[in-house]
């Protein structure tokens, strides 16, 4: 189903479409095992056109846009298998700008000259974001973090937004990549890119105060990350679907186009139903929530469903291709791998459902 967009939103989407024309499977392959595994100049370009500061208020030189615009951009990023971490950069910029006085690194983050990414996960099994084991000690001006963050998209990063427990409720901190006591251990992803475990040993940190509309800066950023990841998953599903439909329209077996077989048609429709449901969820939630005040039950519901459906869709797309879909040479596998990454970050479907049970009062 179509979306009802303003002319500004249509412009934004069109420029995002242009941006991803220079991305796509071929480019994503070229970045395998590269350091960093994206093009820093493309990230700077995204900063120059304002995307990285899209959620930053105009008073802090951002575009002051909302979740619908974020969704339009990241949907395209997912479609194009874009390797530049536009989503994490944009939500981190928003987080850095949310307090009364923006953090000094904000300007460089918004222009794409510095990359800051969230580092909120500690187990990878959908831990409660508001109970981090990472500890903050110290006083204003001399805050120190100790702990470990997992599955951090640290590739090319210059700093991190880290959650930590302290004397009061858990809070969000900025830690520079080159700070004393800050170490990274990297592992390779299924896509041939990098994830890291971030070690913090008395690492100096700056407090990032919450936005006036949010209860807690950690929770707000976590929900924003769930939203961002789900928007990219939507794009991944959409493009995988298109590639597969094209194949069903040209591949012949038994003397007929395989897309004429009812069993395959119905599976194609199952894919379509998933894509439409996620699209409606993404844009309805985007339309009815503020950047720093996303209803947690909605963010969790969205990430749970997008994670599950994106895996179903990309798996089914490979099956509909047959043997060629199982080859590294064919692009369809790249979409499964991107779905595997995005689905697992910040809690997969099962992990989100566990959180949903606790949060949505299901058992009460």
């Amino acid at each position, binding site marked *: *189903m*179509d979306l*009802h967009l303003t002319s500004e939103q249509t412009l934004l989407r069109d420029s995002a479409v242009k941006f991803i024309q220079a991305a796509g499977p071929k480019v994503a392959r070229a970045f395998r095992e590269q350091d960093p595994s994206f093009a820093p100049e493309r990230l700077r370009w995204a900063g120059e056109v304002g995307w990285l500061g899209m959620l930053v208020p105009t008073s802090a030189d951002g575009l002051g846009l909302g979740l619908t615009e974020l969704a339009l951009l990241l949907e395209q990023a997912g479609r194009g298998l874009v390797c530049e971490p536009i989503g994490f950069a944009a939500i981190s910029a928003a987080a850095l700008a949310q307090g009364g006085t923006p953090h000094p690194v904000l300007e460089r983050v918004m222009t794409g000259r510095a990359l800051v990414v969230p580092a909120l996960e500690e187990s990878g099994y959908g831990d409660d974001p508001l109970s981090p084991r990472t500890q903050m000690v110290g006083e204003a001006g001399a805050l120190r973090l100790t702990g470990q963050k997992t599955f951090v998209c640290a590739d090319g990063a210059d700093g991190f937004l880290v959650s930590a427990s302290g004397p009061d409720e858990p809070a969000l901190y900025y830690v520079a990549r080159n700070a004393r006591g800050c170490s990274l251990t990297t592992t390779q992803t299924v896509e041939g890119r990098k994830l890291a475990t971030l070690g913090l040993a008395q690492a100096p940190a700056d407090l990032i105060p919450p936005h006036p509309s949010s209860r807690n800066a950690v929770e707000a950023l976590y929900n924003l990350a769930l939203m961002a990841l789900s928007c990219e998953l939507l794009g991944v599903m959409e493009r995988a679907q298109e590639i597969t*439909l094209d194949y*069903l*329209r040209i591949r012949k077996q038994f003397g007929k*186009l395989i*897309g*004429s077989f*009812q069993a395959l*048609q*119905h599976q*194609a*429709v*199952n894919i*379509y*139903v998933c894509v*439409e*449901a*996620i*699209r*409606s*969820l993404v*844009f*309805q*939630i985007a339309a*009815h*929530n503020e950047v720093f005040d996303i*209803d947690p039950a*909605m963010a969790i*519901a969205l990430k*749970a*469903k997008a994670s*599950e459906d994106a895996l179903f869709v990309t798996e089914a797309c490979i099956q509909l291709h047959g043997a060629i879909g199982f080859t590294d040479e064919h692009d369809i596998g790249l979409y499964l791998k991107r779905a595997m990454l995005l689905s697992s970050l910040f809690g997969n479907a*099962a992990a989100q*459902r*566990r959180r*949903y*049970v606790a949060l*949505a009062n*299901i*058992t009460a």
Partner: protein
Amino acid sequence: MFRRDTTAESHFRIEVRTWLEANLPLALRGRTARPPPAELMPWYQALSRKGWIAPHWPKHYGGMGATLNEQIIITEELARIGAPQLPAQGLNHIGPILMKFGTEAQKAQHLPPIIAGTVIWAQGYSEPGAGSDLASLSTRATLEGDHFIVRGQKIWTTWGHHSDWMFALVRTDPQAQPRQAGISFLLVDLRSPGIRIRPIKTIAGDDEFSEVFFDDVIVPTENLVGKLNDGWCIANALLGHERLASSNPQFPLMALERIKTMARASGVIADPAFQDRLAAASINVTALSALFSHAVELTNNNQSPGPESSVIKIFASELLQTLNELLVQAAGGHASTQNPITTNFGVVDVAAPFLQSRRVTIYGGSSEIQRNVLARRVLNLPS
């Protein structure tokens, strides 16, 4: 749901909730089978007097002309209180069709009684030989001067034996190719001589539908909607709206509440495996609400939901079945018993809603037909 009420909307929600609490008879709450007309129609008429019977109809036809959010609020509040399912053939099907294709006389005659709840409508599409293959229907209407003579049989007619009027697809040109081009859309007074109606008992034990026999029934030509042989287009023109209206999240929301009550009573609610399935189903109800709101927004912007609306029909009907399967699991041994189950958390009907839910993927075009439609018309897959 994912939307938060504005102050005005929250006032409206409280107004709806308060009024429903005060006016919906206790005996009609949480019913799974549709109550018989003698019980149900006074409630329909009460909603009508309040002005809330047709939130989606324009004001000048007696509707509420409600905003999207008001429509959704009414849906959610009806679900919350467990309001019974109303006969919808008038409100959701023939009403909107007449608004679009009817003559002024047809509108004047038929729309006010639909709003008032004084006339009940039935849909006459399916026949014994024309189910999924609807275009093969063979009930004949022969034009003779100022009237048609109708002969044939309709079946699976929801509430046929309770209805006063039927809108029917009839064959007016047996030679036409394609077959769709020989079908007309007629309004039939079910009190006419030559009509015989026989209720059919369902697996759920109710007599929700019936078969209707036409033995040389005289139907005046002014009861033809649109042009002769244009019936297929008319029946299909608003299919998107119909699929949309029948897919609103009210019943899944009610099913969810029923599952929670049953699972608390049986203790299954503490089982992590069950919790996971319940969370997944609950998340899918949220997704249905999103699909529904999205589609209603498009409709309000005068974009027809079109064949894409088959998505919401598939999603809503299959979700309702999943929910009822979960209800059966939550009920354990009680699921095999016919009558509602009395628990410490209230009375829960299990077998009846489960059995009733088996029909939702069949009526209004089966899930398989919806998938065929989407594959060909939306995904452009070859035939």
